[in-house]
């Protein structure tokens, strides 16, 4: 009994300390931002529903910069030259409808800076009026594949500014497999690729003011809630950042997060598998230890 009373005192002070340095201190240090479900309430929905057929015609204005691989339209420039021209490589639009919110796309086409909540954008404003933009958005939605891979969602929404070195992803694509010359150790192909990535990064940093961080273990560095609310509205948590609101839909974000978690926290499934086994083992251990203790101490008092 006395042991339990003492345990109560120890646990109480331990928990107070824990509460103070973890939940309480972090609530003071970090601004709490409520998650709104990628609804983009500040943006207006277009008056009339978009018409994909009209959008298919209007998309002609887009393909002078963007490719749409799934429709057989190639990007007019390679990534590095595009970054030199626009600051960042314009995305291929094949998966746009699968990752982005339709209302957001319509607003973004009218004014990228307004929808993206940034001061400047490589994409010019007014590429279409409100209705034309809604049509293009509807068209992009109509050509989007039903199911895309988590990594494809990431590539489209994040992968042209952020590298993921633990997955060998660079801003201009996957690092190719190359082989060094056996006698000299020189790997020219790798050097050429690195030079391209380097040039792209310089262009990107010039455009954004700094190089966006590598996202390899961002899930461990920021946590689920921060990432979600940050992607929803970067300005809320990092005022003045050059990162635009990307306008992902709920499903699009889930895909992106799935990819980031797989790369950044690869041990999660293993933890979930091994954890219960280890805990169960120690519960069994504690039971046997208790029986031993009781048998040893039984006749001591």
């Amino acid at each position, binding site marked *: 009994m006395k042991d339990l009373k003492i345990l109560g005192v120890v646990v109480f002070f331990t928990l107070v300390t824990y509460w103070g340095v973890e939940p309480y201190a972090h609530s003071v240090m970090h601004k709490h931002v409520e998650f709104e479900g990628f609804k983009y309430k500040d943006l207006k929905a277009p008056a009339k529903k978009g018409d994909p057929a009209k959008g298919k015609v209007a998309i002609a204005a887009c393909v002078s910069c963007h490719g749409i691989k799934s429709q057989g339209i190639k990007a007019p420039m390679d990534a590095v030259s595009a970054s030199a021209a626009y600051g960042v490589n314009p995305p291929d639009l094949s998966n746009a409808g699968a990752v982005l919110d339709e209302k957001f796309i319509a607003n973004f086409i009218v004014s990228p800076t307004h929808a993206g909540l940034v001061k400047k954008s490589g994409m010019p404003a007014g590429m279409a009026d409100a209705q034309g933009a809604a049509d293009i958005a509807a068209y992009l939605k109509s050509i989007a594949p039903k199911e895309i891979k988590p990594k494809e969602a990431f590539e489209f929404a994040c992968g042209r500014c952020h590298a993921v070195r633990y997955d060998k992803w660079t801003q201009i694509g996957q690092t190719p497999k190359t082989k060094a010359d*056996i006698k000299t150790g020189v790997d020219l192909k790798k050097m050429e690729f690195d030079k391209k990535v380097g040039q792209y990064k310089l262009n990107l940093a010039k455009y954004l003011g700094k190089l966006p961080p590598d996202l390899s273990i961002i899930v461990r560095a920021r946590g689920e809630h921060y990432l979600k609310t940050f992607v929803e509205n970067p300005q809320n948590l990092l005022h003045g950042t050059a990162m635009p609101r990307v306008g992902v839909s709920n499903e699009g974000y889930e895909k992106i997060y799935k990819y980031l978690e797989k790369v950044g926290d690869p041990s999660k499934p293993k933890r979930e598998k091994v954890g219960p086994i280890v805990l169960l*083992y120690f519960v069994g251990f504690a039971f046997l230890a208790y029986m031993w203790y009781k048998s040893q101490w039984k006749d001591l008092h």
Partner: protein
Amino acid sequence: MSDRRDFFGKALGAFAGLGALGALYAAKRTWDPLPSVKAAGFTTLDLSGLSENKLYVDKWRGKPILIIKVAKNSKPNEAPNGNNKNAYEDPRLISVGGHKYMIVIGLCTHLGCIPDYFSDKHKFICPCHGGQFNAAGEVLKAPPPSPLVIPPFKITGNKVVLGEEGPEYKKLKESGLVA
């Protein structure tokens, strides 16, 4: 009473041993080669444009790979044990695009040194203990107990991928000729 005391002590000891085994398993897995090391275990050799009777060197899983496009006449100049057969006739050579190649791991089967090739003599001599091999990797002179080892390979056109087992490799393996 004292039996009961002993029983739980022993049971606990046994249970702790079980836990130690689990920890040992995890430790064993930690000691295993990394997935990235295993994934890098493939090397592609391009055999087009090699000259006859010249030694080419590449690397596979960190080990040197010796390649010779064997000439029609590859008799070792002197044969220590009377074995002066033409290496070109050796069943261990690998035929790619109408030519015969020796592709072996370049580590002497005695103690792992790299034998030197003397193209004028059509044979290898190991610098460490004087073992000799012909241009097909067969032993001419001890101490090496067995021929130079043929790595798992797969032929695709004019190229050979090391690390994969193709039908030609499997055939050699079945005949007991790879090592």
